[in-house]
């Protein structure tokens, strides 16, 4: 086929384009030289430097606090929101309202929240990043749980009510277990988004409490160092494991 050559070559070029930078970073992270561009031999020294860097470790801890906290808020509020929207509202207004934060540019959200906090005279800190991240994560959890809800059979809840279970008990014993795969997927997504989020954190964090992306940003702005390569390789590895894990998990939940 003549056509397939025209699509095969760009296909391979695309993957070369996507993976060349990643390969370069990983290879250089093992280079036994502080000159990044000349290969001198294999070393793991930069990983040692990385794991004893207090700024990076503190940034990592901050990021994990923010991601865990914002995911928890988003899961609780997003699930309730989805169930409420599905059961009780006819119009799409609340639905649009709940999903809107995902559509707004992060830049607008960042400067907006910064403006509100400074107008109220609040000091920025880790908590302001956490609250801001939850604001857009709610939208993602709501969307995923809503999708899950639309697949559920309402007669199960009705049966539970008919058999004498109260609304709370029906919710915790019948609805929630069926929603679990959706909530887990939403939690994974909001956790990942929060870990990687830079723009909103850039505007809402205090200089004393940077998240990991902000630490990386200041390092990259300062210049290229072998330590960043090591950090990049570790983060790449974590992402690969997370994506493959999530892939397996969704396959498991689909099978359920």
């Amino acid at each position, binding site marked *: 086929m003549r056509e397939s050559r025209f699509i095969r070559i760009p296909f391979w070029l695309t993957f070369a*384009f996507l993976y060349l930078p990643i390969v370069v970073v990983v290879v250089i992270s093992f280079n036994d030289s502080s000159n990044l561009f000349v290969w001198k031999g294999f070393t793991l020294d930069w990983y040692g430097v990385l794991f004893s860097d207090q700024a990076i470790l503190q940034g990592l801890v901050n990021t994990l606090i923010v991601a865990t906290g914002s995911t928890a808020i988003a899961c609780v*509020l997003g699930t309730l929101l989805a169930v409420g929207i599905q059961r009780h509202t006819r119009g799409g207004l609340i639905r649009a309202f709940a999903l809107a934060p995902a559509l707004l540019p992060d830049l*607008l959200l960042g400067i907006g929240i910064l403006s509100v906090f400074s107008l109220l005279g609040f000091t920025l800190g880790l908590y302001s990043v956490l609250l801001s991240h939850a604001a*857009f994560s709610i939208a993602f959890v709501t969307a995923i749980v809503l999708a899950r809800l639309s697949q559920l059979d309402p007669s199960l809840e009705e049966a539970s009510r008919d058999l004498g279970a109260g609304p709370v008990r029906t919710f915790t014993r019948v609805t929630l277990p069926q929603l679990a795969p959706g909530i887990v997927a939403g939690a994974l997504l909001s956790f990942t988004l929060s870990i990687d989020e830079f723009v909103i954190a850039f505007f809402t964090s205090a200089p004393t409490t940077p998240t990991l992306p902000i630490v*990386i940003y200041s390092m*990259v702005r300062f210049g290229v160092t072998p330590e960043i390569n090591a950090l990049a390789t570790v983060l790449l590895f974590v*992402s*690969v494991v997370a994506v493959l894990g999530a892939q397996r998990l969704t396959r498991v939940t689909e099978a359920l």
Partner: protein
Amino acid sequence: MTAPAGAVRNRPAPPPPATRPAAPARRPGARARFAAVPLVGPGALYITLLVLVPVALITVYSFFERGRFGGVVWTFTLENFARLFDPLYLSVVGNSLVIAAVVTLLALLIGYPTALMITRLSPKWRTVALIAVLLPFWTNFLIRTYAWILLLNNAGWINQALQALGITDEPISMLYTPQAVVVGLLYMYLPLMILPLYSALAHQDRQLGEAATDLGASPFRVFRTVTVPLSIPGILTGCVFVFVPAMSNFVIPELIGGGKTVLVGNLIRDQFLKARDWPFGAALALVLTVSLLLLLVLQSRLSKRLTEGKTQAEGKKVRRDA
């Protein structure tokens, strides 16, 4: 004629009317609406406080004057919007539009054949290819930007390769140019082009292309008259997905562009963090957001109309044939 009927069947189902109650018997009365408050209330309150109020405040700020030492003076003015037409700022807007448009076009040119190729793979390799497209997207975006700083560096691998091949004697300065910004943005958002294209192409009925081939169309003609027209909704979605974030990105112009290429995002960031002119930054952000949201609405309307138009046309044809 079975092909058009097949096309109708293979089209993705319309989204289920999830918001509507399952049966008329469960129609919400006053009591049910009251019962919704504990469910919807906390989330709605949260979004109001952390999204609606901030956006409203930015809107308000954009109509007031800046304070001498930052902050806002409560005197109404339209000057912040008038300043957008200052040639200095217009050129920044023009720059951003050109760069975002070039990035979108390149992403389409690279992404289309890639997405098409993925649909031709076996199911197993299709999953592998899709994960491989997404994987860079799930890695930290500062790290991905940093990788290009390494590559494009004067002493970097690309320059080393060019010199080794004798293409150039002196290193070519690639970093800190508008072209480098384009490459960085393209790298960042290419997956957002490939995925909607893939989804549009994968849902296409392959029998249509086969029918055209059987009737004597060359592969290129099949591509031009069948494959591409049917994938226009996917093309529109992909273009908006790339163009919108490319317009407001301020990190790549700063890190890969060395701050020499000033885009709208940089301008807004600087109004808030350097110039301390919040009202002007607010006006810029507002105009940017409204334009981008309009683009999103336009795209979804257009895609919907294209899909519905086609379904109706095919429906008529099927009826006529029957």
